[in-house]
């Protein structure tokens, strides 16, 4: 039996690492849980329904808790899906998704308080939709096409709500409610959960 050379060993290590990375990318590619998105969509619809009964449709007392509940639900659903497919939840790809989404989401949080403080709440729905769309579109480059399209659709809805603030609540319901539910079903159908 011949002894593998140093170069053979190095190549073998690199090849196994490549296989691991590729498998991880493919798994994480569809790691976004469809059921989590559907549940977030239902929370979005409920929030829109509650907001419709208020004078200010961008009522922070409704939308901030709704966002927090959605994040918890989506994270839990992603964790369950990752466990089901034996994929590490906080993999390299997941970290990159978090990093590319974070700037837009942090900017959204800062602008929320700035605009609210300046009494420009009518611009909040458009800003939320546009920045969430920017984050999802960027994060979606590391995920399935449906997620990328969802991000772009949010950008369009955000643009509509910024151009015509009167449409804000309807756009929020369509985006955070309808779009999440529709894309969630698409992920469940195509990527098994």
């Amino acid at each position, binding site marked *: *039996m*011949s*002894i*593998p*050379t140093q*170069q*053979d*060993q190095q*190549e*073998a*290590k690199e*090849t*196994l690492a*490549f*296989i691991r990375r*590729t*498998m*991880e*990318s*493919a*798994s994480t*590619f*569809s790691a976004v849980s469809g059921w989590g998105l559907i549940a977030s969509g239902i929370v979005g619809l409920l929030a829109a329904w509650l907001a419709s009964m208020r004078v200010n449709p961008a009522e922070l007392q409704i939308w901030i808790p709704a966002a927090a509940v959605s994040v918890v639900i989506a994270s839990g659903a992603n964790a369950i899906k990752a466990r089901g*497919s034996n*994929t590490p939840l906080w993999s390299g790809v997941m970290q990159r998704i978090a990093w590319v989404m974070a700037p837009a989401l942090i900017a959204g949080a800062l602008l929320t308080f700035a605009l609210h403080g300046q009494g420009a709440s009518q611009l909040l729905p458009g800003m939320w939709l546009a920045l969430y769309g920017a984050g999802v579109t960027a994060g979606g*480059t590391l995920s*399935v*096409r449906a997620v990328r399209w969802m991000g772009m659709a949010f950008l369009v809805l955000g643009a509509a709500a910024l151009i015509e603030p009167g449409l804000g609540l309807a756009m929020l319901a369509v985006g955070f409610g309808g779009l999440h539910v529709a894309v969630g079903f698409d992920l469940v159908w*195509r*990527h*098994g959960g």
Partner: protein
Amino acid sequence: MADNPVSEELDRLIHERMRLGIVSALAAEERLSFGDLKAILKTSDGNLSVHARKLEKAGYIKVEKGFEDRKPKTEYCLTPIGRRALELYIDRMDALLNEAREALERT
């Protein structure tokens, strides 16, 4: 690695990096579209097509062509032969590293 009997036993078809990537991705995800595979492997349409065709010819992957919203759609999945080939390939890589480790311990 060509002169080494260990590496000579490797499956040459999936030893090529792009084909190994296709098989690895499909081992992790049951079914992937052409576009998804292209994004995962960060490659061009032409390159992916060429290598996928070779794997299909060898029976390692199955190609399903259809339509979605009236647009053509190509999806790939791994066959049992392809899965077995990847398992054997990984086993050979592991064996190679073990042999190297044992040789190091002997010296």
